[in-house]
């Protein structure tokens, strides 16, 4: 396998050499950038090797807990034949990426794409750097590069001479990059596939890892902000004089049309003054909307004439008309909040020549664009310094609203760095919510209990219509059909159903939607896999066998389903009082399945004891980190299943903190057995996929235990309370 590689030769990246440098204060003035601390030229864009043999791997994507930083470093180090114990990482800035014609590719880290969408060019980058180091050694020794070998950061020549990468790096940096590289056969991988420890754990156990909210700079002030709580509403008036004499207050500012902020010496003083300040808001497009009105919009869509068709096979209406048995059910998943542990925040400093921002973002290039627009400065006079995230889950992926706000605040005190932090309440009121949907399922069974037709009518909110309407295709939001598509490698339906209609009636309440870990796969898997379970029971068939009968042409979907069936012991009776549920789904390029064991106590409360979850992500870069993602996805997914619901009254979100928006804690957390079963030949996502199967696995087990079908989430508000 050979690949043409384009490399930018002798481009000396100027950045702070260590990722930790991002957290250090920057001395004003801002003109110019920090010099490379080591002064070492890069071998190529991905690889810098210091004289002490430290291998610095540049990471374009963003770490936020999901382990991408370590996985991508493994990928580069694999092809580089680097000594893993010497590997460290750093983040280039989006400004550097733009200046170098996006040599590091897309920084966006969402859709479980961190590794799968960058592994090819990063492997090539590692292989190209290796070739240059070997060539440098060959030149030094006057031998043919083909007669040299490289392993563990050392090149060995034909006469047994050796040189370390650190010794060769400055010579390698002067060479032309190879026009082609040969990537390793996966059978020869030494690092990819190994459960190595994360590179970024140590700073998380002693408080030394700096998050965006911890960033500090000389002369920095702090800002607390309040935005109009109703979508589309604006500032009507505010009384700055009422609080400008309060302790520490430096300035009260309006931020755009819809927010006010207090700038003070400390954030606590800024927040205290902000809360004391009278503010009046106008009405907005969200005014007058509450849950009954929003539910009515969606209910109308369940039977509306017009819809967007996502998957159609045969004639579903004829199949329903001819059915021996028709089964119908309506499902609902409410709004969910990301509730990242670290609230939104950003530090900005603005002059009329330059704007710099330090923040936690899943898309630093989008943050750069937002900063540039807010600053009123060209892109090349702005930059974003990337700091690890205290949770992302999609909240920090699309809207960079907090970056815009921080710049608009900083602009009103030129030259002064200002850190803006949202209170938890501000964060909850201004989420970009997992959209609200309902679904009407109609299934047709023949006399033998086979599924001959299925109509899945989804009604509800489109994320794209809210955040990126240019992504709609003639009005249709293709994301609505995640995991239900007829074909494709991203997320296709795992069943053969002769007569099928999956369609969407788009109903968009004026509440801001967003991408939330798992996105539309979450409701699609909940709706479909719960209803398949209903159909199996209606047909008096085993839920696993009912599924298998429709999966002969879907071997990878079937393989993970079989894996969890075996793992949970589906063919053997569960312990007394324990009941099981099972399901499967495909999304973000990976095949996932889960089985759950549940019991119900005398008071009717349920307990999830055990989850067995499988993922076929094609290629498993770091199995122990994949297991961590699987475990975590059940905490996040079951938080929505059990407790999660954002409601609005007159356009304003009601749930303002964790006391009214409870999430799964250790008390509810089930044991999770992770089956990482990569079948090879493709690269699927990992951060999200198993979340899809969290809710239906548990809901199906609850049905088995109680005979009560969970059709509306969250369970705790609809009659099913976790013990």
């Amino acid at each position: 396998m050979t690949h043409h590689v384009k490399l930018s030769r002798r481009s000396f990246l100027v950045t702070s050499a260590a990722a930790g440098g991002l957290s250090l204060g920057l001395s004003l003035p801002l003109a110019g950038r920090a010099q490379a601390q080591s002064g070492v030229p890069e071998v190529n864009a991905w690889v810098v090797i210091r004289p002490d043999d430290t291998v610095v791997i540049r990471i374009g994507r963003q770490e936020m807990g999901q382990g991408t930083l370590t996985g991508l470093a493994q990928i580069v180090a694999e092809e580089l034949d680097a000594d893993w114990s010497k590997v460290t990482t750093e983040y280039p800035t989006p400004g550097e990426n733009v200046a170098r014609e996006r040599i590091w590719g897309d920084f966006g880290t969402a859709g479980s794409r961190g590794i799968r969408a960058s592994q090819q060019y990063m492997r090539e980058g590692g292989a190209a750097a290796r070739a240059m180091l070997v060539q440098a050694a060959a030149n030094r020794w006057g031998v043919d590069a083909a007669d040299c070998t490289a392993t563990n950061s050392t090149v060995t020549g034909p006469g047994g001479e050796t040189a370390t990468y650190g010794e060769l790096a400055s010579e390698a940096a002067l060479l032309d990059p190879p026009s082609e590289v040969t990537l390793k056969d996966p059978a020869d991988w030494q690092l990819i596939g190994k459960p190595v420890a994360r590179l970024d754990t140590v700073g998380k156990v002693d408080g030394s890892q700096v998050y965006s909210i911890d960033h500090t700079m000389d002369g920095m002030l702090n800002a607390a902000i309040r935005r109009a709580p109703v979508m589309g509403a604006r500032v009507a008036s505010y009384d700055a004089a009422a609080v400008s004499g309060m302790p520490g207050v430096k300035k009260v500012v309006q931020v755009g049309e819809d927010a006010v902020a207090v700038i003070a010496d400390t954030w606590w003083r800024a927040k205290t003054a902000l809360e004391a300040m009278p503010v009046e808001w106008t009405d907005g497009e969200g005014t007058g909307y509450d849950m009954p009105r929003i539910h009515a919009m969606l209910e109308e869509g369940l039977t509306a004439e017009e819809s967007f068709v996502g998957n159609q096979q045969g004639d579903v209406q004829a199949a329903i008309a001819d059915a021996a048995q028709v089964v119908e059910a309506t499902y609902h998943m409410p709004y969910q909040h990301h509730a990242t542990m670290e609230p939104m925040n950003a530090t900005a400093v603005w002059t009329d020549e330059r704007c710099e921002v330090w923040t936690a973002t899943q898309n630093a290039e989008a943050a750069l664009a937002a900063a540039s627009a807010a600053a009123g400065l060209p892109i090349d006079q702005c930059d974003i310094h990337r700091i690890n995230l205290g949770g992302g889950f999609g909240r920090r992926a699309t809207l960079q609203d907090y970056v815009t706000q921080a710049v608009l605040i900083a602009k009103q005190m030129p030259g002064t760095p200002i850190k803006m932090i949202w209170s938890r309440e501000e964060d909850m009121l201004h989420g970009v919510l997992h959209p609200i949907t309902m679904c009407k399922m109609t299934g047709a069974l023949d006399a033998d209990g086979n599924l001959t037709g299925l109509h899945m009518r989804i009604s509800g909110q489109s994320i794209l219509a809210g955040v990126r309407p240019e992504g709609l295709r003639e009005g249709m939001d293709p994301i609505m059909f995640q995991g239900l598509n007829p074909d494709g490698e991203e997320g296709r339906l795992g069943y053969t159903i002769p007569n099928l209609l999956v369609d969407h009636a788009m109903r968009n309440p004026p509440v801001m939607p967003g991408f939330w870990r798992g996105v539309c796969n979450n409701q699609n898997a909940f709706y479909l896999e719960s209803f398949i379970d209903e159909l199996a029971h209606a047909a008096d068939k085993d839920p696993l066998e009912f599924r298998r009968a429709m999966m002969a042409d879907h071997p990878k979907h079937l393989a993970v389903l079989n894996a969890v069936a075996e793992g949970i012991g589906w063919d053997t009776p569960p312990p007394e009082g324990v009941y099981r549920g099972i399901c499967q789904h495909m999304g973000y390029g990976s095949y996932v399945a889960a089985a759950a064991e549940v019991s119900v106590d005398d008071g009717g409360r349920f307990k999830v004891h055990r989850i067995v979850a499988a993922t076929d992500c094609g290629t498993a870069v770091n199995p122990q980190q994949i297991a961590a993602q699987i475990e975590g996805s059940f905490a996040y997914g079951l938080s929505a299943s059990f407790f999660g619901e954002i409601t609005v009254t007159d356009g304003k979100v009601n749930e303002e903190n964790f006391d009214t928006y409870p999430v799964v804690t250790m008390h509810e957390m089930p044991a999770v057995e992770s089956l990482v079963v990569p079948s090879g030949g493709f690269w699927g996502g990992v951060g999200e996929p198993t979340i899809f199967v969290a809710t239906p696995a548990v809901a199906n087990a609850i049905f088995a235990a109680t005979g009560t079908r969970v059709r509306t989430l969250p369970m705790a508000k609809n009659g099913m309370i976790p013990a």
Partner: protein
Amino acid sequence: MRISVNGTVHEVDAEPDTPLLWVLREQVGLTGTKYGCGVGACGACTVHLDGVPMRSCAIQLQDVGEDTAITTIEGLSGDRSHPIQQAWVELDVPQCGYCQSGQIMVAAALLAETSEPTDDDIVAAMTNICRCGTYNRIKAGIKRAAELS
């Protein structure tokens, strides 16, 4: 006002009703203690007061005397040698890591009181929120730390 943090007395310039969390973060400059909710619900701000784990967002400066020994994550061991910290690294417990300072402070207090905690002990003590969902590794980490102690 004066407070004693990790063995050092600090003179702080803050209103008496300022939450200890923000005194630690903004006056003392110890940012390992995290802001998560401000209402004592999430536990990210947990520190020890005389060895007892407390949610520092819910404690006012005026309620902490100079003779109260405040321990933050930075002062737990100073060199990551506490068994909880060792176990956390060994098992790669953190994901994003934001809640882990608080989790570790609660876990360390549990271990100080109960040298071999059962699952029930651990679940009863560990009420902090982790959105990444590291709960099972936290549980395993506490058990591993008990072995290391």
